[in-house]
Structure formats: structure tokens, C-alpha cells
């Protein structure tokens, strides 16, 4: 019985030691991974900053205006003007879709009777 208890305690201690080492190395791995990710985030953020600056530079109003003027034939864009505002009443209602498949009765009913009188 005593031997059994000592054995159990010994195995438990070994198990705990294994677990502690495992957690320790796991933590170290995670920390290394974290550092790697942070480095990556920093470099991505740097890239993002460059892209944002590039986006702002490519979209600067002077350049857009020049491009619009160069491509006037294709785009036909003009600066916004008060005349371009319209009212809702100027928008036409959508045309009802005509169903032409159904046969239409061209002769009104009851015409013959009237004509016969």
C-alpha cells in the first residue's frame, strides 16, 4: 500500500513537472510568435502608411482635374453646377412593361349587336 502511494506521488510529480515544462516552452513559443507578429504588423503598418500616402497623392484634386480634362472625350465630366440639380417630378415613371404575348381581342364585344340595330 505504501509503495503504491509513493509511486502515485512520484508519478504525479513527474507528470506535473512535464506539464510545467510543457507550459513553459509553449509560452516561449507563443512569445516568439507574438514578436514575429508584431514585427509583421509594424512592417504592414509601414506599408499601409505608404499606400495611404500614395492613394492621397494619386487622388489629389489637381491630378484628378487634369485627368478629367485629358479624358473629356470619354468621360464628359464637368464641375458640379447648380443647373445639374433636378427635382423628383422631372424623373419619369418607369414605363409599364407591355405583355405582347397574350392575344388581344381587337373587336369589342357587343359591337355587332349594336351595328345590327
Amino acid at each position: 500500500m505504501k509503495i503504491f502511494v509513493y509511486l502515485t506521488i512520484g508519478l504525479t510529480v513527474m507528470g506535473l513537472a512535464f506539464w510545467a515544462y510543457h507550459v513553459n516552452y509553449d509560452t516561449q513559443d507563443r512569445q516568439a510568435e507574438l514578436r514575429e507578429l508584431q514585427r509583421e504588423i509594424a512592417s504592414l503598418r509601414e506599408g499601409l502608411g505608404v499606400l495611404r500616402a500614395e492613394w492621397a497623392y494619386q487622388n489629389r484634386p489637381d491630378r484628378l482635374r487634369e485627368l478629367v480634362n485629358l479624358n473629356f472625350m470619354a468621360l464628359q465630366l464637368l464641375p458640379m453646377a447648380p443647373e445639374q440639380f433636378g427635382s423628383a417630378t422631372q424623373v419619369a415613371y418607369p414605363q409599364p412593361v407591355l405583355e405582347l404575348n397574350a392575344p388581344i381581342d381587337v373587336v369589342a364585344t357587343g359591337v355587332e349587336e349594336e351595328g345590327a340595330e
Partner: protein
Amino acid sequence: MIRTPLRPLARILHARATGANPDEIERENIRLRGEATRDSARVQAATRLVVMALAFGLAFSTVGVRMAMLAAAEPAEPSLNGAETQILAQRADIVDRKGRVLATNLVTHALYAQPPIMVDPVTTAEKLVQIFPDLDRERLIRDFSGGRKFVWLKKKISPEQMQAVHDIGDPGLLFGPREMRLYPNGALAAHVLGGARFGQEGVSSAEIVGVAGIEKQRDQWLADPANQGAPLQLSLDLTLQSAVEEVLAGGMKLMNAKGASAILLEVETGEVLAMASLPDFDPNDRPAPLTKGDQSDSPLFNRAVQGVYELGSTFKIFAAIQAMELGLANPETMIDSASPMRYGKHRIRDFHNYGKQLSLTDVIVKSSNVGTARIVQMIGPERQKDFLETLGFLEPTGLELVEAGAGKPILPQKWSEISAMTIGYGHGLSASPMHLAAAYATIANGGKRVIPTLIHGGPKQGGQQVMSPAAARRALAMMRAVVTRGTASFGEVPGYQVAGKTGTADKAKPTGGYYDDKVIATFAAAFPVTDPKYVLVLSLDEPVETSGGEPRRTAGWTAVPVAAEVIRRVAPLLGLRPEPGPTELEGITLVRN
């Protein structure tokens, strides 16, 4: 210590008397002494052993503990930066009210040299000059072959240049990482942004400090890491700013002006939507300030904020408002307007003679100096000064630009009756266009004081009621009449019911007196008049309109058409739908004489 004698006399005599051997006493004493000596030596040796044992024990335990620590601790290189430290984006971005970037940072490199580890200084210098033509070859060779240990070559270089320097392959050429300030929109809103330069410089980094504009005013905030990369959001709108600058530049060219400025203000919040001053500059490559001559001729000079000018007839509306506010007049009150008016040795003239009498409305509509002087005479200098003070004309505007402090109004030394009369029609008091915009916004805001700001979404302004809403409304009606039938008839933009007042002020000579042929033409406007939301102040420096037979310089011919075009372009961008206005404003009857 008293030593016991080996042969104590008393005991020897006693032994001799009893017949004992006195030598025994001596031997006994020698033995005792020897034992005492041995005991003390043993104690001393024991103590030494203990001390030695302790010392060794300490030394071994130190080594042991250190070994245990090394064994237990994880191996890691010591690093200077904590995990959360960010070296990137040291300085906050500046964005417009819709989040579009106005100023950001870009990673780049600085180039420096360490001549002691250089392999071939002369060839290196020659190759460097090929990459950077602005470097001086002789000077480089002198720097590289002299005793210098460290030479800065370039503060910012592009990636292509960096590659070219890499290709030289000299180990003495080194790069330091840098963050540089970039203004992607170039000269747009240059005067607001100002510019930045490197402050303290090290090999691995350099701080960026603002040199002008909002960059300098908000330098600490922008450099504060506590903001966690939050950008500084300005009230400017990039689209509006661009449109205003484009139209203003065109107008300045057409009207042959040497400078121009425009301010577009949102009435309710006092936020500046666009602010332009021409000529302008590129904040990425800020020109050096003028070393001689007039600073106001430099492109760095912000005419909208820094420049204080006599703003001419745009001031007349304030006299009219105060007269109505004090109950001295209503829009129909007839005012004596016989020109010229004599006051002591001074004579006040009108541009044309407008007859003997004009209604208060017509004094504004026709811009009569004499009529305004008469009104100011009724008001008196003290009350006029107080009123202009409540409108903010006596101190700098407080706009968030370092230059705003320089825009301190120039007041007459003595606020006498004659200076009050001239101030009434805008001469004798110099203020910046921003002052004027704030005052007109106050009128447009129903008399509640508006303080201009460049920061979007700041604390809500609980403006002080400077004038009654009724007086403000009547003033707007007068200003509307200026556009429909007065000096600003070119200012009519169909659908937007512009109300405004022109001002043509003769420029003051630096030597005293006024130029005959140099004016500052200003148009201050609010639109749409039924519910004014925006105020535009546009002024041209020395404009001449030459389409007619003789050159025309009045604001009605120069500043007003440009302002009308600005409103035509800007109003749709602001989302204002053109509305056919009421033919006549409520409570206003037009009076003709």
C-alpha cells in the same frame, strides 16, 4: 593585563619556609601559562575557520544561485524596445473633415558617411555627385579625406537614390531610417498646414517639428504618443478647398491682382471649410522667408489671417446694424447724404453723388460714405468701439494657426469722432479677412457671436448674442438688396440668394497717405439669405479690370464676379439645392427716393 609572575615571592618564601621545592611552583605556573596560550590560539583558529567557511559558502552559493537562475530562465536577447513600443507614425496625420489625408508620414532614409571606414573616398565622392548633382565634389573629397569621423550627406533620399548609393558599395556610406512629413496634395491648403522640418537628429531617428500653420500651433498634440495614432481632423473640406483655390487663382489672373484670399465659413459652427491665400507654396518644399522687402509679398504670407487691411465699405453694415439696434434708425429712415460732407478740416466724399437724402437701406445698397459717417455720428465713438469689440475686431481672431496671432488689428491711436466716422466706412481700422468673416457669420447666425475654428467637431459654441435677431435679419435683407440692385449686382447666383457687401479700400502707402490706383477689393457674402448657412469673404489685392474703356478697380467689378463664381462652384458641392427665392423678403419694403 597583569601577568602572574612565574616565581611569586610570597609563595617562594612560604615554600622555602616549609621546605618544599620552589621550582615546582615555577613549573606549575609555566604549565598554566602554556595552557592559557593554547586555549586562546585554538579559539582564534576556530573563528578564522568559521569566517573562511562563511566566505566560501557565500561565494559558492552566489555562483550556485546564478547558475540556477541561468538554468531556470529562458534564454532571450536583451531588447531595448518593449513589445508594445511603436516606432512608426511618431507624428499624427492631419486629415480633412471627411478623413482625407492632408499630411502624413512616409518612411525614408537619411544618408550619412563615416570617412574612417571608407575604402575609396575620391571615387565615392565622384559617384555620389552623379547621383546627387547638388552636392559639391571638391567639398565631399575634402570632407571624406580630412579628419572628420561623421558627415551628413542628405536628409531625405528616395528609394531609387538609396539603391544607387547601395550600388556604389562603399562601406563608409550608411543610411539612417527617417520618417518624413508628406503633404500629398501639394500646395493645396498650404497656408493652413504650414510645413515641418527635422528637429533633433540622430542616426536612427529624427523628430519632426512644425514650422508654421497648424503644424506649429498643434505641434505638441501631433507629437504626443498618448493620442495613439488618432489623426488631427481639420474643418477644411479638400474638395471645397480645391474648388475655391482653382476659382480664386483664375479670378486673380483675370483681374490682374497680385494677391488674393478667400475664406469659406460654416455659420452655425464657425468651422472654416476652405481658406486660401494666393500666391501659395508647396509645404513639401517650403521656400525660405524673404530676407528683405515686404514680408507680405512672400508666398508664405497668409493674407486671410496674417494680413491686416482696411476693409472698406464692408464695415458699413456694422454701423447700420448698430443704428437699428439702438433704435436710432430703421431701414426706411432717411439719412443726409449730401456729398462732400465737411467735418472740421476733413471732407468725406462719395464715389458718386447720391443726392441729398438716402434711406438707411440705400446708404448700404449704394455704399454711401457720407451716409455712413452721419450714422456713426449719431452712434458716437464709444458705443461704436464697444460694438466692434463684441464682434471681435479689437483682438486677434484666435484661429488655430500660429500666424493668427500676427493678425492683430491696427486701431487708431485715439478713437475720436472723425476716426469713428472713417472706421464706419472701413478706413482707419485694419483687420484681417478672417475677422470680417467671423463678424459676417455672426450676422448670418442671427446675431450670435461666431468664433472661427479650424478643428472639426470641436466643443459647441454657445455664442454670445451680440445683436438682436431682428437687426441681423434686417441687415441680411439690406445685404440682399446690395446684390439685387446695388454695388454687387454681379454677385447674383441664380438659386442661391446671395447677400453681401462690397468694399473697395485704397491701399495705404508705407510712407503715409493712400495710393490713387491701388485698392483692396473685398466682397463679404452670406448665402442663402433665407437661412444663411455659409459665409464667403473674398478679397483681391490690387485688382484691375481692363475689359472696359478705362480700368475699373471697384469691388463690384473685380471681387464680386470672382466670389459669384466661387459660390456657383461651391454651393452644389455643399449639397445646397438651388431654390427660387422669395421675390421680396418678409417685412421689408423696398424704398426708392
